[in-house]
Every structure is written in C-alpha cells, then in structure tokens.
C-alpha cells in the first residue's frame, strides 16, 4: 500500500494553474491560432478582407529555391553553432573545475559574454572581424581575401557562427560546470592515483557522467540556433543575410518577409513550417540520442 497525497478538490489545482494557463493561452495559443489563420489567407497588412487561398502560401514557400537555401543555412548554423558552443563550454568547464589558481576569476569571465545581447555582440564583431579594418585587415594585406565575409558565403557563415559560439559558450559553461561539481570527486581522485592524466579522466569519467547535461544542452542550443532571438539579431547586425543569401537563416527570412515585404501570410506559412521542423528535430534527438544517455 503506497501512501499517496491527493488533492480531493478539483477546483483548487485548476485555480493554482490558472494564472500560468492564462499566460500560455494569451502569449502562445492565441498568436499561434492567428498565425494559422494568416497562413491560409492573403492577409492585407492593415487588416480587412483576407481571401482564403488554401495551401497556396505553403506551395509558394516550398517551391522557392531560396527557401530551401535558408533551411540549409539554418541547419548548418544550428548544428555547427551548437557543437562549437558545447565543445568550448565543455573545455572551459573542465579547465575551471580543476581548481587551479585563478579558477574563480576565469569562471566569472567565461560567463560574462552570455550577459551581452546578441545584436550588440554582432555590432562589435562587425568591427573586430571586418575585412578592411580591424585585425583581419593586416592578414588580408598579406594574403588577399584570406578573410572576407562580405565576399565569400562560407566566410560569412563562419563569421556568424563565431559570434553565436562566443556568446552562448558562457551559457553551456554554466551548466557543464555545475554538472562537473556533482561528479563524485572520489572517482577522479581514484583515477588520478592510478596514473591517468586530466584528459584521460575527462574522456573516461567526467564526460560520460555529464551525458544528461550534454543532452539537455544539445536540445536547448539546437532550438536556440534555429529560432533564438540572437540568431536573428546577430545576422541582422552583421551580414544582413548576405552575401547573396549565404547567411539567410530561417528566422531572418521570416522577419524579412513579414516586416520588410509586409507579406504576413507568407511569413506565417514559413513560421508553421519552422515549428514543424523544430518538432521533428526535437523528436529525433529524444528518439535516437537520448537512448544513449544514462541518467543514473
């Protein structure tokens, strides 16, 4: 016989949940329904009669090669951004966890970039990594076009990924550092006494024990890379989607379509496809990656 404490009343729990439900309804479901309606009509910007057009908006989006380009760019950005961010965060966390002199200061410094807004970081990096000024200018003087994100799409994509990683590495660092604190010291000490170095200990003991944290960060960072406000902010402030669509991530495309082109319906259709894609990605992560994660 288990002892279970159950609320007898039906209304009390609903009452407690009500404020939260109201917020979710107001800020999530309501807009979502509006977006759904727009996606199947041609919505005039100032309102008025919107004609029902069925799946025409979706067909238009899905047959546009530039849209598929933006999907590819987004996938590369999210994957590369996530992996770089987690890798840097992990290396920094492992280093800071060793309690060497100055660890406290570095711990503070590593978290700092996370406090800076994406667009602000983008603005700063636009100067730091600009091909004709800044540090890259001297490299370009020796080897012309060694670094030119205004010319080469690949450079531009690396450019925005660097800014994303610079900012979000601090975030993954916090979680991984906290995770490392809960790895039993006895394990690492025993391994050290058996003669394994810091790298060996990290690979064999610490990283496997961090698996749940790593998985959590994978899901969060992938979502952030796809739809995060920073993704838009960084691209908007640096490359503006260019050169020639090379850094046009999906969120940038949506904002552009809606607020520059005033094509609310096309943007709504793109949003719905994006939501679908994120659901697929999250499903894949939980279905195939989480199996390899051991929580205990």
């Amino acid at each position, binding site marked *: 016989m288990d002892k279970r404490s159950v609320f007898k009343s039906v209304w009390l729990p609903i009452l407690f949940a009500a404020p939260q439900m109201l917020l979710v309804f107001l800020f999530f479901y309501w807009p979502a329904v509006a977006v759904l309606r727009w996606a199947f009509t041609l919505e005039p910007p*100032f309102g008025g009669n919107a*004609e029902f057009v069925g799946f025409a908006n979706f067909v238009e989006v899905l047959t546009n090669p530039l849209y598929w380009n933006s999907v590819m760019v987004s996938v590369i950005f999210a994957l590369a951004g996530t992996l770089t961010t987690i890798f840097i965060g992990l290396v920094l966390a492992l280093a800071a966890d060793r309690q060497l002199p100055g660890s406290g200061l570095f711990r503070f410094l590593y978290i700092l970039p996370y406090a800076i807004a994406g667009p602000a970081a983008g603005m700063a990096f636009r100067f730091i990594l600009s091909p*004709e*000024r800044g540090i890259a200018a001297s490299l370009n003087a020796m080897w012309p076009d060694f670094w030119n994100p205004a*010319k080469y799409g690949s450079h531009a994509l690396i450019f925005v990924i660097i800014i994303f990683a610079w900012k979000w590495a601090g975030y993954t660092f916090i979680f991984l550092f906290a995770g490392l604190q809960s790895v039993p010291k006895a394990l690492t000490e025993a391994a050290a006494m058996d003669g394994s170095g810091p790298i060996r200990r990290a690979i064999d003991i610490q990283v496997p024990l961090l698996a749940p944290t790593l998985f959590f960060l994978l899901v969060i960072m992938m979502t952030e890379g796809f739809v995060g406000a920073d993704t838009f902010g960084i691209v908007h402030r640096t490359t503006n989607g*260019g*050169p*020639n669509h090379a850094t046009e991530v999906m969120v940038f495309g949506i904002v552009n*379509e809606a607020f520059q082109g005033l094509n609310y319906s096309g943007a709504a259709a793109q949003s719905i496809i994006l939501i679908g894609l994120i659901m697929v990605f999250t499903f894949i992560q939980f279905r195939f990656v989480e199996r390899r994660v051991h929580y205990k």
Partner: protein
Amino acid sequence: MKTSVLSSTVAGLMMAASFGAAPAFAEKTKFEFWYGLSGDLGERVQDMCKKFNESQSDFEIACTSQGDYATNLQNTIAAYRAKKQPAITQIYDVGTLDLMLSKAYVPARKLMEDNGYKIDWANYFPGIANYYATSTGEMNSFPFNSSTAMFYYNVDAFQKAGIDFKPDTWEQVEEAARKLKAAGYECPLGFNFDSWAIMEQFSAIHNQPIATKGNGYEGLDADIVVNKTKFVDHLKFFKRMADEKLFVVKTKQLGMDVVPAFTSQTCQMMSTSIADHGTVGKTLPEGVKWDVAMLPVWKGTERHNSLVGGASLWVMDGRPAAEYKGAAAFLNFIATPEMTEWWSTVTGYIPVTKTGFEAMKASGFYDKPMYKGRERAIESLSFTPPSENTRGIRLGGFTQVRKDTATALEAIFMQNADVQSELDKLAERSNANLRRFEKTYEGAKLN
C-alpha cells in the same frame, strides 16, 4: 478599520469626481505623432514638436521615435490593427502604396478642408507632390522630409589629379576616375549596394521605367523591367569600372560605408542623399574643398528630374475629431515659411514648397558656404516636369525589391555573377512578389 478604508476610498472618489466635473483650466487636446528618424534627426523632430507646443495653447503633440522607417510602418500597422494608432505617422517614400490601399488614412486635402485651412496645393514642387499624390494629382499625405540623390566629389583631389572639369556625365566620371587613380588615389569612386541611388535615381534621370504601367501608377498589374532598360548597360559599365578598381565597393560589411569613406578622404567621389550634405560638411577636415553636383547622365541623354526620397506624413483614420483639429494645426504650422527654413537649416532636407524655397533663396541661405550646393537638389528634382517614369514608384512591397536589388548587386560585385542574369532573377523574384500583392488587394482600385 473597514469603515475607515471605505470612507477614505469614497472621499478619494469624490475628489476625483469633483476634479473631473470642474476643471480649473481648459484641457489641451493631446494627440500622437510617430516618426522613423533617430539620432540627430530624431532630436530635431522633437525640437519641432516643442516649438509647436509652445506656439499655441489648444493642442499638445506627443512625438515618439520608433527607430527607423520600416519599424515605424510596422508599428503603425500593429497599432492600427489594435485600434491604438497615432493621429499622424511618418511613412517613407516606398511605403506610399501600402498606405494608399490600406483605407486607414484621412486624405491630406480632406483633412485641411474639413478643418478650415486653405492650402495652395500647387505650391508643392511637382516632383515631390507627385510621389505622394494619386495619378490624378490629388495629394494623400504631406511631404515632410524630402531629399534626392546627389553626386559628391572632392575638389582638392580633382585639382591634384589635374582634372579641370565637373563630373556632369558618366564619361567624365570615368575620365576623372582614371586621372585620380593615376595620381595615386586608391579609391576614385566609392559605392554601396543602395538601390535608391544606383538603380532608382539612375532610371528616373535617364527617363527609364523601373516598372510598366508608369512605375505602377496606372495599376497593380505592373511588372519590374529594370532587366531590359539602359540600367543593364549602366551596371555593366559599373562592373567594368569595379574590375579596373576605379570604382570601389564600400559597405558596412567591408568595414566602411560610402559616406565615411568620402569624409575620411579614402574615396573621392560618391552618390548619396542631399540629406548627407550637413554630415559631409561637418566631418571633412576644415579647409578641404568639396562640392555637390546633380547625378551624372550618359552623354547624349536628355536629363530628367530625379526622384524625391524621404518620407511624408499621413493622418490616420479613426481618431476623435478634436485630434484632427490638432493634426491640421500641426501640419499647417510646420508648413509655414519660418518652420520650413528652420527644418531645412538644421537637417539638410530640402524645402518642399516653391514659396519656402524662394524665401530661403531670398534670405541668402544658399550663399552661406556650409549650405552651398543644396539648391542643386531642388534643381535636380525639378529639372523637367515629371514624366511617366519620373513621377515616383508605386509598387507594393517595394522594400523587398530594394533588398533583392541589393542582393543582386552583392552577387555581381562581390561574387562576379553575370549582370544580365542577376537582373533577370531580380525581375522574376520581384514580379512574383508584385503578383502576390496584387492578389492580396484583389479588386482594389488605385486612386
């Protein structure tokens, strides 16, 4: 305890009621004005609002910057949908059609007539008025901050390179560029991927259509045709010049935009708005001689008027009648000759009315060294009476066309793409957008 709370509440309510019932002084009518300028220009708008509030005691205008033009349009739309629109909003040139079809505004003429103001509509320069008027000439909004593109050049550099002519034609620009290069200047002419100066103004002054149907004035079924006009050859010329490093790309992404490139004397020629005249004068080191000219034309072409840029003021529908009185008073106030001159002096935007311009000329404004050359913007705007191709651009979602033009230029100049095929792609993409716009407003009539 309970009674005391109750009684104090009642007392409070009564006090509030008595204030409401017997106001000590006549309440001012408050109304809102949203605009899309920031920084120095944004502060000048605030000054203007303050001047209006101090000039009379019936109305109070509250002016709010929304950042930039596109954001202001966006916020105006959002506010209108939520029925919280400002009485007056500033909409940029290419947003004109979006407003015209919205049915969300009070036409300029109606507003002024309803509120008893007599406006001489013929007093506006036709080149400016036509951009904001229906195809029959009825004005919907008030031209506010107006500019046009001009050609800036560094006179000192010209002299050092031994150039003894003004760059009036593109042939001369090429010759000047070669001489500057030979004299050791790394960047004879700087340019960026701004569709307004490179494509739109070029098309107007060479009397080339940007789109069919009189650039969209005669119907929503217009097609973009910049891939079939003189613009193609012009762009090929630009490409040749860029390949020879006579014309140099200067963008924010590369580290320096055209205006800073000119004011730091990195580049010796550029095309940009007359609104930058003040900045250029203030930023160039003292003693450096420079000048502005009308945009060059190709030899043998008949020059036409250039297009007005900037924004106009729209009065939004659905506000209380009292606010419209205030809005009309404000619009009348800023159109007075004194305000026109003040606004042009502190910003660099051009006066929009003939009397305003004449008054400024008479007062010797254009003879002052720091404002010299600004009158050429008026000359450029009113060079010929507007033709079918130089009235303006009336195309839906034109901001997107500008973005796509910038992308095409990026592909051509940064990635060596073919001029003709990029322009074909641009036309194709833009036309797809125009067709969707047409369908969104199916059955809507222009005018």
